[in-house]
């Protein structure tokens, strides 16, 4: 199906099912119940699942396949965001041209930065990409303020030209991003008993783009190009002596992953039409590294899972505050509950970064393959048990 092997087609269908039914899957708890705070099925968060999924899928094409660890990919995301917002300001509020421009501009940036950075490998490559991204960040924050909006960020205004659209709506508001009349922010809710499910246009738009990106990533992974990239990671010397020039391959991978990042940035701006320099900071680059590794670097589904997990943790953990914890531990004696509240409080609320940091370290130390490896190990354990069972079952009649 779609020119894919059965296994890959199943994977694509699985991700598609996750994406389509996300509003249900992420809202398992009835509205108003104590557990409702763990629901994640609201538009803003679901959009981020899809957008960061795209970002991580693209990053994985570079890092997962070639092993080149870029610490500056957030720059492309930021560039994509700026490009999209400029399209909203100058052309129209239609998201399609905005996204196309975001991809093109970030691709050009990636071409230049990649061309220079890829002349080195290993840690030098990481430092070079980091240096370029920090330069972009610093410039966006200061000198380029006319283009980037500086500290306040780039925002839409009532007097923007929008030559194919309107500068302001009849009511005198700034128009909102849309797709040929469909507004991205539009949602409709469905109540089933005590459950409330939200279906948001913006989310489904992101999800469709994410599925397309995922499909493209599968094709790349299975293509000769993808194989060459893995060969680069495995043994560049042999590749050279086999008559292949690694440089254009790595550059192509770098540009493709930069374009994925730009696409994510463009979508981000399409959901909420503003862009700020902090999106380019190196901590943001670190975040996509985290997602990719958390999910499983070099695997197809890993980055999607990693992005989902990290964004879910960010939202859910940061919502748990001291009051919630005190409620949880209230059954304990006073002194004990205080201690527990104090200890667990380190990992939730504003401190949720500690949790992700710790999990990230644990993953690198014990589970370099991330969630995908975890899944494999667990299913491997079951399979082993099954094998044992069948063996003993076979052995019995013989006795």
């Amino acid at each position, binding site marked *: 199906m779609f020119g894919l092997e059965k296994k890959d087609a199943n994977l694509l269908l699985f991700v598609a099912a996750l994406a389509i039914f996300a509003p249900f899957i992420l809202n398992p708890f009835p509205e108003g119940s104590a557990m409702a705070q763990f629901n994640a099925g609201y538009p803003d968060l679901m959009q981020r699942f899809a957008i960061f999924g795209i970002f991580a899928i693209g990053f994985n094409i570079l890092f997962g396949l070639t092993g080149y660890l870029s610490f500056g990919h957030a720059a492309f995301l930021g560039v994509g965001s700026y490009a999209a917002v400029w399209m909203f300001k100058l052309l129209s509020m239609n998201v399609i041209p905005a996204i196309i421009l975001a991809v093109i501009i970030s691709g050009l940036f990636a071409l230049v930065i990649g061309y220079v950075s890829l002349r080195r490998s290993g840690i030098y490559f990481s430092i070079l990409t980091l240096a370029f991204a920090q330069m972009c960040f610093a410039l966006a924050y200061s000198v380029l303020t006319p283009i980037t909006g500086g500290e306040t960020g780039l925002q839409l205004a009532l007097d923007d030209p929008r030559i194919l659209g309107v500068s302001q709506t009849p009511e005198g508001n700034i128009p909102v991003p849309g797709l040929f009349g469909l507004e991205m922010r539009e949602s409709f809710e469905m109540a089933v008993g005590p459950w409330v499910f939200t279906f948001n246009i913006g989310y489904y738009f992101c999800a469709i783009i994410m599925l397309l990106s995922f499909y493209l990533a599968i094709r790349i992974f299975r293509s000769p190009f993808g*194989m060459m990239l893995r060969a680069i990671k*495995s043994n560049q010397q042999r590749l050279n002596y086999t008559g292949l*020039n690694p440089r254009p391959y790595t550059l192509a991978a770098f540009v493709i992953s930069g374009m994925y990042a730009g696409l994510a940035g463009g979508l981000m701006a399409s959901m909420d039409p503003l862009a700020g320099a902090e999106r380019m900071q190196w901590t943001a680059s670190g975040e996509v590294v985290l997602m990719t590794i958390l999910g499983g670097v070099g695997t197809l589904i890993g980055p999607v899972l990693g992005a989902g997990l990290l964004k879910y943790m960010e939202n859910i953990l940061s919502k748990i505050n001291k009051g919630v914890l005190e409620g949880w531990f209230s059954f304990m004696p006073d002194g004990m509950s205080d201690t527990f509240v104090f200890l667990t409080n380190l990992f939730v609320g504003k401190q949720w970064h500690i949790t992700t940091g710790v999990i990230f370290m644990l993953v690198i130390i014990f589970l370099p393959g991330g969630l995908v490896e975890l899944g494999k190990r667990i299913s491997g354990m079951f399979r082993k048990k099954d094998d044992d069972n069948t063996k003993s079952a076979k052995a019995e009649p013989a006795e």
Partner: protein
Amino acid sequence: MGILEVKDVGKRFGGLQALGDVNLSVKEQTCHAIIGPNGAGKSTLLNCLVGKLIPDTGSVMFDGSSVLGRSPHEINQMGISRVFQTPEIFGDLTVMENMMIPLFAKRDGAYRLHAIESVDSEKSLIEQAHQMLEEVNMIDKRDMHAASMSRGDKRRLEMAMCLVQNPKLLLLDEPTAGMARADTNNTIDLLKEIKEKRDITIAIIEHDMHVVFSLADRITVLAQGTPLVEDTPENIKGHPKVQEAYLGETQQV
């Protein structure tokens, strides 16, 4: 004129003259061995042929055009394949994938962005890879991870990866180093077969005299960066200069 013409090649590393005025001519469809004691400059010479090193002086012509200043992948595209002293393969890839990469390089050149079509749709290349794997008796290992194989198998795979490109010149850098006697004999048989079946020229650097005298049509003895003698195996065997150069070296003539 040989297919490979090395003229007055010199290479210096700091104060060390690694190669001085090396002249070498490898005739088409022969097996030419380069022997010599440790430090004679054999590896330096080889590296000058494949673009890893650029000689300070002299010229290296292959098939009528110069290889100097070209990068290893360009030289491979001209028709030179190299087997390394320790097998260089793509350890993270399967045996089959290891075979496909040289085939793509042969068909598509040094670079082609074929990112959409699947590897599995390349039926004719897959067919060629299968044939080659059968030739080296590795077809049953086609789905194995290359890194998990024995050293002998890795060597055979590397050889197969070079041969599947149908190179005009095959360079072998001590292909039997560290091999058990049985494996060495297998390799000799394999190389003999290749020599007979294909229109191929082989240049081999080797320590093991048994291998050299089983395969070589011509032998060049290198000592202290310069060729001492070049002759047929029969004449080399009793040559006094060669004995002298190898004095103190272990040999199995």
